[in-house]
């Protein structure tokens, strides 16, 4: 109607009720002062999109649907109300909302002034006891929040804010620090799939799925991942799943399995940013004593920090291990990888690369190239005048001579030479080639996903 082009593009035949709804939104008689046109439009789009995604475009009763501006207004009021303790009839200031630092500081300077200069009728030299004792009470505001002082003023403040809320008080909407909720919310949403959206305000129960629903969601996602292997979709779904767990403060074995599965998928796809987020959570969850697969993930964690060359974190990861854990094969493997690299023992390192437990190979793939460069730099300095290519292939765990040859040729084409039945690698002629490549590879340690 108002934007026919857009509608055609979407090849979607919109029901008349939706069109009416859009029309009503922009009717002059439905304007609410303080709600801007842009806000209205974006909210309108949001509403229609979500209906479309849910496939309830035709079933929704659009005539009953509140208009976007009404929704916005309602939310603002809720945000304000949340700042006020709802249990008392007399509005009492919520500590975090009204006792912000800013307010305090102004209170203090005020009080100092009153304390610093006494009111004229009190400047008599000899103070009677009564005067002395009652004096603080007559101060406008004592230094500390005394039981009697200050309250009425704060009440006024809150009332003022509420009044302004009716008239569309704008700046309190989406204030930088939304009020803290009193406890975890309990979700009411029962749809299995949900797109991930970064929270900018406290979540609403109707948008959050309770744990029972999330179990089904996880099953569905596992199936879909196996069938469709669409990482963008899966990652998005897992993020909203994690978000729903967090806002409901659910921390149990189910939580662990969600993070473990997401971590494995992210590893497989080389999404280290997402993987690292999961890993951080898992560490905390295991530490809280929740069951899962700590051995597997502690091993990954070590490999991950080898990749990011984060010595401090690596040290901490080792510190997290118990003596028994150090003997578990996956952890032991990761520790051996670490010490082989620390000592420059590339021989051992590449042997470990050929036999990695679980999914650790995905992580080792991340740094295998740079370690090959390091090993080649090493070999070129120590071995003279040449080495058989086959030796390089075996020592550096290339799959074939061809792969090894290609790796070397990518840096310098002059370094290989045919000798009858075999190819030699002219270590003596390599000079600084691999040393430079090594230095560059290590400088470029990919830190994405590091918080």
């Amino acid at each position: 109607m108002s934007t026919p082009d857009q509608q055609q593009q979407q090849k979607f035949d919109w029901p008349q009720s939706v069109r009416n709804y859009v029309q009503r939104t922009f009717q002059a008689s439905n304007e609410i002062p303080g709600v801007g046109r842009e806000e209205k439009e974006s909210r309108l789009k949001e509403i229609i999109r979500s209906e479309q995604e849910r496939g309830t475009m035709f079933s929704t009763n659009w005539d009953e649907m509140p208009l976007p501006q009404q929704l916005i207004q309602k939310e603002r009021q809720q945000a304000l109300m949340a700042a006020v303790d709802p249990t008392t009839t007399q509005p009492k200031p919520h500590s975090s909302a009204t006792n912000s630092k800013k307010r305090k500081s102004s209170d203090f300077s005020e009080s100092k002034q009153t304390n610093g200069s006494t009111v004229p009728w009190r400047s008599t030299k000899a103070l009677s006891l009564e005067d002395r004792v009652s004096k603080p009470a007559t101060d406008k505001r004592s230094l500390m929040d005394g039981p009697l002082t200050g309250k009425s003023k704060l009440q006024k403040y809150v009332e003022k804010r509420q009044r302004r809320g009716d008239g569309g008080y704008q700046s309190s909407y989406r204030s930088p620090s939304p009020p803290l909720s009193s406890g975890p919310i309990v979700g009411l949403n029962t749809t299995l799939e949900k797109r991930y959206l970064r929270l900018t305000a406290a979540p609403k129960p109707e948008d959050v799925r309770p744990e029972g629903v999330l179990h089904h969601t996880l099953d569905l996602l596992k199936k879909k991942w196996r069938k469709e292997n669409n990482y963008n979709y899966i990652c998005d779904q897992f993020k909203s799943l994690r978000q729903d767990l967090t806002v409901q403060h659910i921390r149990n074995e189910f939580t662990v399995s969600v993070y473990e599965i997401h971590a494995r998928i992210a590893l497989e796809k080389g999404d280290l940013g997402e993987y690292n987020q999961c890993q951080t959570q898992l560490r905390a969850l295991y530490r809280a004593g929740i069951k899962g697969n700590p051995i597997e993930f502690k091993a990954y964690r070590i490999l991950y920090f080898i990749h990011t060359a984060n010595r401090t974190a690596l040290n901490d990861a080792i510190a997290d291990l118990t003596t028994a854990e150090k003997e578990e094969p996956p952890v032991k493997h990761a520790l051996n990888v670490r010490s082989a690299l620390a000592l420059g023992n590339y021989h051992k390192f590449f042997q470990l690369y050929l036999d990695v437990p679980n999914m650790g190979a995905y992580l080792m793939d991340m740094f295998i190239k740079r370690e090959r460069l390091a090993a080649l730099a090493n070999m070129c300095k120590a071995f003279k005048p040449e080495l058989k290519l086959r030796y390089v292939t075996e020592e550096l765990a290339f799959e074939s001579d061809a792969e090894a040859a290609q790796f070397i040729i990518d840096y310098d084409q002059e370094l290989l030479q045919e000798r009858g039945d075999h190819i030699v690698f002219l270590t003596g002629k390599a000079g600084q080639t691999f040393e430079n490549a090594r230095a560059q590879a290590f400088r470029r340690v990919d830190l994405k996903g590091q918080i």
Partner: protein
Amino acid sequence: MDGLIRQFRVAYATTNGEQLAETLNPDVHAHSAKFRAIWGRGDHRSMTADLNFLFHQDQARLSIRLSKEETSGWYAIYAVYWKAIGEILAVEGLRNDSKVGRFTDDGISIAEPMIHGVPLPSPLRQITRFRANQTKSSWAKVYDAWKELTLLVVRGYTNHDFENWTIPCLYVTGKHLRLYAMRADAERGLSNDNSAIDDLQDDFDPQAEENKCLEDCARHLNRIFQICASDRAPLEESRKWGVYYAVNLLFKTYFKLNSEPLSKNILRVISAGRSDIPPIDKFPKSQQVTFKYYEGVLAFLEENYVEAEKHLEMAWLMCHKDAQRNLELILTYLIPCRLLTTHTLPSARLLEPFPRLQKLFTPLARAIKKSDLRAFDIALRDGEDEFIKRRVYLTLERGRDIVLRNLLRKVFIAGGFEEAKDGAAPVRRTRIPITEFTAAVQISSGEAIDSDEVECLMANMIYKNLMKGYIAHERGTVVLSKSGAFPGTKV
């Protein structure tokens, strides 16, 4: 309160910063009676009345001149200090004004709540009791109260014209803020209170959870650092003299929070403003030592061992001879540093006063000297937990290179000399079969090892300049340099 303010006046009259700071030192254990007297019955009104009198009416006894600004600043500070004292006494179980905390009845009689000898009217006493009953003591409350105090002290400098001789007060408040923050965090950790999760996060933030107060504390300490470092007053009056107080506190906090990058930021700020921050050797030695120690450890953690050695050595030389613990800390990093930079081992005499270090380093040093790979591996494993905790493990591990170097050197020496030609000086045998080295490594480490791995280890020796020469793989020999095959070892 009287005594406190008297002390305050004396300090002010003599512009003695340390003494002034002492009035804000909440050492309730050493002087519990004194602090209980200050707290009295926890009556807020009598306290403000006292302060009012002492600061405003008692001018005649004031031997010092305080500007109106300063007066209001200090007034506020002592009022909040009093409140903090109440919280501290409560949590330490030393408060006996009400049902807060544990009762301690050790015979010290606390006077009735009185103002200059006159008891309070009873309704006020009831209010006092009521207030005290409302609360449950905790370190979190101590932290909050002390934070308020810290903010006020900081504001003293920004808004109330406090002079720079008073900066020890900043230090005392900052120092205790940090201590209380750690206690508050530990206390919360025990109670496992997860109520403060930020609902807007997609995930939990375990790190921030654990150290919530300390991270908050770091922000306030940083503020202290800022108001010191950014002061533009001429040097004699400048708060720049407080810079290292603040920096050292910040280092301690950041280390505890495990965030070296933030410490590095501070170092950068300091070196950027070095031209107008007084040179470090003009500061008290204690501050210099602490600063150099942290500067050294930071370089150490970045594997910049040469730089680290420089700073740590300065700290070592300047450190007071009786500060055993500090000396021990410095050595914990200086010894591994030396091992890598100059391959020097600690002497028995050096380690003698430090049994803990002796236990940690002596087995390693002995293994290196005897070029015993097995003993080295065992020593490293035995000390692993402690080494990891001190974050020296990854550094010490590299000492294995030195053991190996010493071992290969032995093989080289055992190889003897080539027959001298034409009466020239005899030359060492420089072509050595790999098998000889392989045998040596196997004996020393007590484990089977194949020649490929030995070649790899030797390639490393050559790569790291611990050994000069090359490996002729096809012929299975190592050809060592005729002059100085093992640099720095006279062979």
